[in-house]
């Protein structure tokens, strides 16, 4: 191999590692969550639809969780807007939880509430499509 071919191969290898398995979550802001699919069911205590990103506070069996949704534009594009959910509603959140077992926080890619399904991160819902 010539030096330049070797360099291209090396860069290709690095790129493959970065964009390879599990890299769906390798973008900005997801480093702190587990790659494993996670489902939370609970009742909504609070709904915040604003910047920097939308958020639900949900009481589940093991306590009160912070369920991070997407920034306002993406959350609204998914259909999750004012009025589709209310405090007290039961919600199922599909996504990925904090790697810290004591931290009751998760990032949701899909939420189900009141018969509606809202894919706030539609590119990341594949693991949950069979559920």
């Amino acid at each position, binding site marked *: 191999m010539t030096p330049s071919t070797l360099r291209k191969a090396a860069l290709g290898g690095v790129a493959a590692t970065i964009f390879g398995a599990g890299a769906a979550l390798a973008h900005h*802001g997801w480093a*702190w969550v587990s790659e494993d699919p996670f489902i939370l069911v609970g009742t909504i205590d609070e709904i915040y*639809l*604003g*910047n*920097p990103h939308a958020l639900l506070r949900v009481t589940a069996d093991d306590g009160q969780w912070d369920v991070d949704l997407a920034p*306002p*534009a993406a959350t*609204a594009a998914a259909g999750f807007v004012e009025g589709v959910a209310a405090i007290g509603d039961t919600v199922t959140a599909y996504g990925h939880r904090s790697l810290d077992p004591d931290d009751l926080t998760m990032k949701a890619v899909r939420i189900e509430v009141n018969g509606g399904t809202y894919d706030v991160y539609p590119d990341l819902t594949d693991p949950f499509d069979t559920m």
Partner: protein
Amino acid sequence: MGWLEALADWPVAEALRASFYAYPLVNVAHILGFILLVGGIAPVDLRLLGAWRSIPLTAFARVLEPMAAVGLVLAVGAGFLLFSVKPEEYAANTPFLIKVGLVAAGTANALLQRFSAGWKEAVRGGPVPAAVKARAVLSLAIWLGALTAGRFIAFLD
């Protein structure tokens, strides 16, 4: 705290909260502000500590002092707007509180430096006194610390 609640109810804060474009743009202004601030102050500090000795300090000061000053005003102004979106939450965020403390300390240090007799001597071409160098080291440490604390706001409580 009453004033935090009142700030959250400010119509500008409400508009930023709901916006798709304005909030990210205020973020841009904040980032541009601290780019100009840190990018302006760091070369001056390094010059005070002996870098680029062949270039007069006064040249650095003339270009970079206005840059840093504009940067500080922009960063603080945009920062206040960002803060208003979730005042109670940010006021309870440790990295945020550390950052505000560091920004205050950095500003005080910069003003002390700028109006010190040692600076005036150095800018006229004289030697850089030890006190001025000490404040330059402090400046680099403080602004790097503020930058770090600021980034951690999103990652830690």
